[in-house]
């Protein structure tokens, strides 16, 4: 589904992603872990087409298409979704109107007509229930005055509504209390099917107990320096990242790419 090869990207002239490789197939869940500042959010931004992120090398194919060549909205319409680490508040845009607009834009892109009001409401109710998302929140302005946790839940609610092929969750767990985490995870697990895939960016192994990944990757200084199964997440939780930093210095010195 997603095939990233030797991706390099910089912000304001500073190289952040330094040759990153990642293969994600339909049905898979990948976790990306790594210390602060290692480039996790940058990867998410580059994949979704945020401006000011300059791709300086490599490629990212999504379902065979050059993802990096598409506008942000077309990437979304093709089925890429990012649950933001810091969702934006947009006072004056109602959550519902926003979702309806987004859904219809995606449908129109695929040559489908707008969703009937009734159908839309049905979908809304269904997904609200799935994520135990407060109807009052759904009716408010987009993220305006939402708590950190509410914003994160709204991201997952949008994910459920838009039903993308590839969902990237950027630190969705931060700001969620344990109950919310359980609800969100349960929701995500229900959304999983053989046709979609998830990239879950997180610091903590905790989330991965609920959403069990097929692969865990460690992103460090703009590269994936280690990949493994969910046990790697446990190991990271126990040992921290320092041992990897040592490792990576050696690798850098030896100028060898770590195998994924």
């Amino acid at each position, binding site marked *: 589904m997603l095939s990233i090869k030797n991706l390099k990207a910089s912000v304001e002239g500073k190289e952040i992603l330094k040759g990153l490789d990642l293969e994600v197939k339909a049905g898979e869940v990948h976790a990306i872990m790594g210390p602060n500042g290692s480039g996790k959010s940058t990867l998410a931004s580059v994949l979704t087409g945020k401006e000011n992120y300059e791709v300086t090398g490599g490629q990212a194919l999504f379902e065979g298409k050059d993802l990096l060549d598409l506008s942000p909205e077309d990437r979304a319409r093709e089925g890429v979704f990012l649950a*933001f680490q810091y969702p934006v508040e*947009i006072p*004056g845009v109602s959550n519902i109107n*926003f979702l309806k*607009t*987004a859904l219809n*834009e995606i449908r129109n892109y695929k040559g489908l007509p707008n969703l009937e009001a009734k159908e839309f409401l049905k979908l809304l109710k269904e997904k609200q229930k799935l994520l135990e998302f407060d109807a009052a929140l759904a009716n408010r302005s987009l993220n305006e005055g939402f708590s950190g946790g509410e914003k994160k839940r709204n991201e997952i609610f949008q994910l459920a509504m838009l039903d993308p092929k590839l969902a990237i969750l950027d630190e969705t767990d931060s700001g969620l209390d344990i109950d919310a985490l359980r609800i969100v995870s349960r929701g995500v697990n229900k959304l999983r099917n053989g046709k979609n895939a998830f990239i879950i960016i997180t610091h903590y192994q905790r989330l991965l107990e609920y959403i069990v990944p097929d692969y865990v990757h460690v992103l460090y200084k703009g590269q994936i320096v280690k990949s493994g199964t969910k046990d790697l997440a446990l190991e990271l939780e126990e040992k921290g990242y320092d041992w990897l930093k040592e490792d990576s210095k050696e690798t850098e010195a030896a100028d060898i790419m770590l195998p994924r």
Partner: protein
Amino acid sequence: MENRITQINSSLYDQCIADYEVRSSLFAAEAPEVGAARAKAIGHFKQLGFPSTKVEDWKYTNLVPVLKENFELEQDEDILSVKDAVIAKSKIDLLDCYHIVLVNGKYRADLSDAVNVEGVYLSSITDAAARPAFKQHFGRYIDLEKFHFAAANTALFRNGLFIEVKRNTVVEKPLHLIHITTADAPTYFQPRQLFVLGTSASISIIESYGTDTNGAPVFINHVAEIVVQENAQMQHFYIQAGDQHARYVHHTEVYQQANSLYNNYKASFPGTSLWRNNLNVALDGENVESHLYGLYLAGGQQIVDNHTIVDHRKPHCNSNELYKGVMKDDSAGVFNGKIFVRKDAQKTNAFQQNNNMILGKKAVVDSKPQLEIFADDVKCSHGSTMGQFNPDALFYLKSRGIGEEKARALLIHAFAYDVTEKIPIPEVQSHINALIEQGLK
């Protein structure tokens, strides 16, 4: 011409002066209050003339190009026919209201709904001459030494509308005034209005503007006086849309007495070449409340100039003003908001805010909030901002599949929302939202 620096030399000025002379014998037949007001006003107008940009309040709005367009004064007209479509264009979908149509300022009962509400008197301004409320309030509130166009209008108006809502009368259905201007040569019009709300009366008045001029430019110098007596309430809506042939200088003078409420909601849209709005509100009693909400969406070469004065004269009053502007293309905006808090007006709360989104590369706004406070126990604030699209918000919307154009439209609606959400009549709110949609194209 009294002063060649602050006045624009134009044939229109000469026509105005001559018109007063020609008509002065007719003025003798009017109510003495009107005649006296005219006489005083022509004196001021002779002094003031049409303002050049050397006049502080006209610094950013240059009338020279407008006054060059060879306008002729309006004449006494027969009953003009107006296309239904022109009137229909201003109507508001699904709104249950009384439609009142005015053509070139003239009240047209034949095109209007009858307002059969006990306690409401509505007539042309000439028919109102004998009414005590008219005589008591006409021409009483505008400072004609300061307002060039109001002076000209007072001296020379021909047509207009008078509405009186008597004591304790609550008008349930809104009145929708549709002002149509029609001409086939460049014409200068000076319609006039006086609304008097008696003690504890209440009414909602919506005003819309339309033109049908076959391409001829028209210049409308509109003056409205509004008296809101004790404990009365008025919701007042201006929906300012029109085509590029129209230029408006629009003066609204509101006089409020104790415990009264006056809310003004003004929305202007691309099309009309010039909107100069003067909205002055005097809070002349205790516990008065006034809210002024403005939304201007400007495009093309349009000039939208909003001048407001909120004059706190007595203690314990609240005023709140919020004007938001969205400037496209080469449009130019002016916001000038004065708040006076006089010495007596202790415990005043007065707030004012002007926010702008500048979308056009050549669009500009000159924003000047001014506070003059002579009382010491007051809460006042003012501010103005200029901004563009928030790139993070834009990206957030796009990342959900929403295209550039739709995303921008959503953000503009969101920006305007602080004003549009305040509009208390849902049909009017939807109408204005639809005009925003249209204006963004």
